[in-house]
């Protein structure tokens, strides 16, 4: 259809065909009307040539509209005049076939003449339900009318102020919308014409509305344009309930929490047990009345389009399919600039526990995988391009300047185009342009599991450089970053076997601080196993360098660095002892100190060698691997300059050259022994040229070990080496332990520990150890990275074993939940077992496991079902309903004991053990046999403490359970169990 109807003020209505400049040619050329090739049609010139319909009396034609359902019908609204109809419906086919002039004048029903004003405003035809045509028009101010045409004489009259912009809902045959001249939109249901089913204001200032229109694509979207507004507003209307609002308010007043509760509990059985009480009755009453069930729409959302440069004149929905989540609006502003706006629906999002992301786009749901970076669609376009393209596409402006002489005052019609069916929308991911990106640009290629990726861009210098081999940062990969999230990494780690075993973990993680961390864990474990962490009577297992140096007891909190350290508890080692040790030839010398034992333990924790022979082996091994720099640096850090020179001289040319420099330095040093030369740093030749050369040379070096060597020989001060941040912390601390004086060492260690704790660097654990300070550090590490896996696994090694920390308990719990969520049940079980083993070791070493694990079995009375233990409230144990559980363990122990009678203590013991294991892999509660004698005097559990009934009798001796008998280990275990539970 390319006909245009033009109503003239004379009352004539012209039909103009738009696709040719010569009007009235019936050939179908198929040329679409295109807004970019505007044509001027001079109506005045060609008036005679157009077919036209004339009204009987000459008067203004206010509105014309084609019928949608029956396109050959044209309705014309005219000014009111006496003795004539002011709404006429023409059949244009008839008009065309019989040339001009033939008028078929459908008479509207008589009520038109009763209308008070002329037909003005707009007029719309639409299709209701069956195939009846209805034309509606506005009359003056107060009425909106509907006519069924042609034959049915019935009409519908709605008396309202909202008489403008009437439009029909294309998705609901009974619904239409209209607006008042002060900005209020009303939604009507034609079955219930007495009252608008929804009415809302479009804005605070009661500005009149120019136009409202339903979206032809999606139900319930109404766009409105306020007069002189630069933007459109879109209203999202959703179907509400079928009940009338009035009944709801009645129900409100009756609504009462108590009655609800009662009714809820009293309403037994039935499937819909909660659709009851007043609410339910109300529904019944309503449905009994004859009112049709009319949905009450609810205004859900509103939004506005981006403002145009000038105020808008008119708009229309674009009826073509853009995508199922996007609808388009075309608008024209006062400068005749036509703009289109795409309205996108908000995507719904959901995260899968494994790290994938589900995004809904209209009807399509996309899951972004987290396992592999996608090679196909997502990486291809350069991100900047993709992004800018997207931004353009988001709100596209077609700069379509119309000729100035053709001012558009009318409405923008819908380009009726059904031919195109667009491709389904595709999904792409891009990085925003210009964002330096925490992840994208400098991502480190990670071979195994690493959790240090979050720090990637800060850490590259550090991670790339440590130990054997220099791994250059891989080329940056652009992917979603989802694969690099800690949740994905932790899950992969769990699958690959990341566990409490430090040796395994070391191989899993890539080089970096995390590897250093696990290396320390491994060393600490070995030291602890060999009982090598004892100094005097203090056990320093899993303690860091700082508590070792401070000489803190096992669970003493380390002193903050600001306060003067307490020397009191440090086991002093006599200086003659240290000199004795010095004499042992193999030992690598350490600077004179009062804390030789502590320093040695610290060095062991840092992985430093204590003996020359061992050092030599390590250096030779490193040489064999070809990493001369590391070997030389390693020897150098132990103060073995000769060894270092030897290593360097075997390297390539550059290293050979270096060996000469270092050898020269060594000769220059006054003292003969290497250690003396190094420690007597202050006597260095203050040759400034030499120093400057060395310094500049050291800065040129890329290898941190070489750099460290040079920075030392330039100044002769080990503190310069400590400043070399690209060395691992273990190396630096080793150097500090070996060469710094006591005071310097403490200051250095304390300040380093503090800064590492605050920044949550996990390798700082070398200094703090798995102490409370260490947990502080781990907390900060978790805060920063979210890597709960590492901290849980590491801290579980030591935490319930040496001391308790509520934070670690939380971590363990959260991590176990997380594994469950990933359905890695076996991994969780293995973790539980490993934790149990760790606990078991601690029970063997004399620490009571009972202090660490909550009681897991309880004995209850046969009569009242209460626990035998007095006033027992089980902390932390709650049932599903959130109530405290009084009894767990299912009465097993009670029957077990009574049935077994005089069965030995081991029976009960075994039972506890197995139940403890079942309850989460925690070790046997430590009920030591033989404690019964002590407990028997005060706590005789002969009667149940709550109901005072006697306890069951033993089947063999017929004594009540709990009666103490001499040497009866079974009862001993029994009463000690009672003690233990009551002690909880």
């Amino acid at each position, binding site marked *: 259809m390319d006909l245009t109807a033009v109503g003239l003020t004379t009352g004539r209505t012209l039909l103009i065909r738009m696709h040719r400049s010569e009007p009235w040619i019936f050939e179908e050329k198929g040329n679409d009307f295109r807004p970019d090739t505007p044509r001027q049609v001079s109506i005045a010139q060609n008036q005679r040539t157009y077919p036209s319909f004339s009204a009987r009396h000459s008067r203004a034609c206010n509105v014309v509209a084609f019928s949608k359902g029956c396109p050959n019908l044209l309705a014309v609204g005219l000014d009111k005049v006496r003795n004539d109809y002011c709404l006429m419906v023409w059949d244009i086919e008839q008009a065309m076939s019989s040339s001009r002039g033939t008028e078929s004048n459908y008479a509207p029903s008589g009520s038109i003449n009763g209308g008070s004003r002329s037909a003005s405003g707009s007029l719309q035809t639409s299709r209701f339900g069956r195939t009846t045509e209805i034309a509606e028009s506005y009359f003056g101010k107060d009425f909106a009318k509907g006519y069924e045409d042609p034959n049915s004489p019935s009409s519908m009259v709605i008396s309202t102020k909202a008489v403008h912009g009437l439009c029909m809902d294309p998705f609901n045959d009974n619904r239409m919308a209209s607006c008042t001249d002060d900005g209020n939109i009303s939604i009507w249901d034609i079955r219930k014409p007495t009252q608008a089913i929804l009415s809302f204001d479009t804005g605070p200032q009661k500005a009149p509305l120019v136009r409202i229109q339903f979206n032809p694509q999606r*139900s319930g979207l109404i766009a409105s344009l306020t007069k002189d507004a630069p933007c459109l507003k879109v209203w999202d209307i*959703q179907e509400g*309930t079928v009940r009338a609002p009035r009944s709801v308010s009645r129900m*409100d007043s009756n609504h009462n*929490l108590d009655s609800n509760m009662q009714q*809820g*509990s009293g309403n037994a059985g039935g499937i*819909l047990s*909660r659709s009851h009480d007043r609410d339910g009755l109300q529904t019944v009453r309503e449905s009994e009345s004859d009112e049709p069930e009319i949905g009450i729409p609810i*205004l859900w959302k*509103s*939004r506005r389009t981006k403002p145009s440069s000038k105020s808008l004149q008119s708009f229309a929905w674009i009826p*073509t399919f*853009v*995508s199922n*989540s996007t609808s*388009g609006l075309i608008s024209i502003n006062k400068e005749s600039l036509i703009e289109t706006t795409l309205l*996108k629906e*908000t*995507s719904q*999002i*959901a*995260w*899968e526990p*494994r*790290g994938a*992301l589900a995004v*809904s786009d*209209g*009807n*399509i*749901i996309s*899951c972004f*995988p987290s396992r592999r*970076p996608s090679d*196909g669609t997502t990486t291809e376009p350069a991100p900047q391009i993709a992004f800018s393209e997207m931004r353009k596409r*988001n709100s596209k402006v077609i700069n379509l300047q119309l000729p100035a002489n053709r001012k558009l005052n009318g409405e923008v019609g819908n380009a009726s185009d059904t031919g195109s069916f*667009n*491709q389904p*929308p*595709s*999904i*792409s991911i891009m*990085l*925003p342009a210009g964002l330096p990106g*925490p*992840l994208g640009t400098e991502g480190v290629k990670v071979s195994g599991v690493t959790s240090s990726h979050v720090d990637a*861009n800060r850490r590259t210098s550090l991670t790339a450089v440590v130990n054997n081999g220099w791994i250059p940062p891989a080329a940056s990969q652009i992917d*979603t970053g989802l694969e690099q*999230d800690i*949740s994905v990494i932790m899950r992969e780690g769990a699958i690959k076997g990341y566990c409490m075993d430090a040796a395994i973990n070391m191989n899993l993680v890539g080089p970096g601080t995390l590897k250093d961390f696990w290396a320390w864990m491994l060393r600490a474990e070995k030291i602890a196993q060999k009982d090598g962490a004892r100094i005097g009577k203090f056990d320093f297992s899993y303690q860091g360098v700082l508590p070792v140096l401070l000489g803190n007891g096992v669970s003493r909190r380390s002193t903050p660095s600001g306060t003067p350290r307490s020397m009191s508890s440090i086991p002093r080692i006599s200086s003659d002892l240290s000199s004795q040790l010095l004499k042992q030839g193999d030992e690598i010398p350490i600077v004179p100190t009062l804390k030789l034992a502590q320093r040695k333990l610290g060095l062991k924790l840092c992985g430093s060698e204590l003996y020359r022979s061992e050092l030599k082996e390590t250096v030779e091994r490193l040489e064999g691997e070809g990493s001369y720099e590391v070997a030389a640096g390693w020897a150098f850090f132990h103060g073995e300059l000769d060894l270092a020179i030897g290593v360097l001289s075997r390297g390539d040319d550059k290293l050979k050259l270096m060996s000469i420099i270092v050898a020269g330095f060594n000769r220059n040093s006054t003292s003969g022994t290497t250690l003396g030369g190094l420690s007597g740093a202050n006597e260095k030749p203050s040759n400034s040229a030499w120093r400057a050369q060395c310094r500049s040379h050291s800065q040129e070096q890329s290898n941190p070990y070489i750099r460290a060597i040079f920075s030392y020989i330039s100044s002769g001060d080990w503190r310069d080496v400590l400043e070399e941040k690209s060395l691992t912390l273990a190396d630096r601390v080793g150097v500090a332990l070996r060469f710094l004086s006591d005071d310097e060492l403490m200051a250095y260690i304390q300040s380093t520990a503090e800064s590492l704790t605050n920044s949550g660097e996990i390798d700082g654990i070398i200094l703090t150890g798995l102490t409370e300070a260490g947990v502080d550090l781990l*907390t900060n590490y978790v*805060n920063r990275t*979210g890597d*709960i896996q590492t901290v*849980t696994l590491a801290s579980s090694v030591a935490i319930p074993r040496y001391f308790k920390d*509520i*934070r670690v308990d939380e971590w363990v*719990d959260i991590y176990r939940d997380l594994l469950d969520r990933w*359905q890695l049940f076996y991994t969780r079980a293995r973790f539980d077992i490993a934790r149990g083993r760790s606990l078991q070791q601690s029970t063997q070493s004399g620490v009571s496991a009972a202090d660490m694990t909550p009681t897991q079995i309880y004995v209850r009375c046969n009569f009242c079902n209460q626990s035998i233990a007095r006033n027992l409230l089980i902390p932390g144990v709650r049932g599903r309903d959130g109530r405290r559980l009084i009894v767990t363990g299912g009465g097993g122990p009670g029957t077990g004991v009574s049935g077994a009678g005089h069965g030995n203590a081991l029976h009960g013991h075994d039972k506890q053990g197995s139940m403890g294991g079942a309850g989460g892999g925690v070790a046997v509660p430590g009920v030591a046999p033989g404690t019964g004698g002590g407990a028997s005097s005060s706590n005789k559990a002969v009667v149940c403490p709550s109901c005072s009934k006697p306890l069951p009798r033993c089947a063999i001796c017929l004594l009540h359970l709990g009666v103490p008998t001499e040497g009866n280990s079974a009862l001993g275990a029994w009463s000690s169990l009672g003690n233990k539970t009551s002690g909880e």
Partner: protein
Amino acid sequence: MNQVTKFDGSHEDLIHDVAFNYYGNRLATCSSDQKIKVWDYNESDGIWESSSAFKAHSCAVLKTSWAHPEYGQVLASCSFDRSVIVWEESYHDAAKKWTAVATLRDGNGTVQDVEFAPNHLGLRLAIVAADGLVKIYEAMDVTSLAHWTMIDSFAVGEGPSKDEEGNHCLSWCTSKFTTQMMVVGCAKDHVAKIFRQDPNNKWQACEILGGHGGVVHDVSWAPNMGRSYHLIATACKDGHVRIFKLTDDNQGGAMSGGWTRKLFIVTCIADFADHNAEVWRVEWNVTGTILSSSGDDGKVRLWKATYTGDWKCMSVVSAEDGPNAFQR
């Protein structure tokens, strides 16, 4: 699996919510077409397969939430029809069927959000309706699920809110180691509030997350994951995504020992206007390390903290539209 898995939700209307179950192997979608569809993940093929679809409500279904799997396969959905329905999957002759086991219909407004409480609190359900009342229901008998008792009910603000401004939302704090808490977006007040139980077990509005320039459309409480602080994200009508950090207020609460309204110091650590349109959803990933937000601009943005703790946009996910009508 290295492609984006895409499938047609085949709903007849707009999808209002997408929800994964606890394990992430089932997916529920709900839509304006009044249906809920459940999808199962096929591990071997790497695709989502339709498991069941059923008409759930007499109006558009707004939100849906999965219960913890220990209670069985249980879904709750809320709708414009003012009801919350609890669904349970049952097997009849090897055919899966979702049955409405309970309908909660005390509200007098659209039920705007529904969420199951974290598992350690039992089988509980919090709902918030347009009238501004949060209600907490608990299943009395977890084996039958037919009886739900309202154990708590509190108003998020003063008086019922008006239609357009009436968007409420809630999110439970999933941490086991704090008292039960939730954050609620309080429609017309333009704030989100944290609610907690006082010593008399009455829910009280405590900390207030302010600074919003409009209605809070969505709130999301990040999984704690052992961190010493909590994170809450809000999506706001003013087009901003905000992240609030809750740190323990050591001076106030711990010293007095009693119950206090100020347990946390609330700081807004991030405020992004990148969407440049109303933001409707915010959602944290499982570890609370990535935040996703979705707005009227049709984009989903992902946010992540850098090494220094600054939150940055990580990527933009977009439903790209095909060649459209205007380019011809």
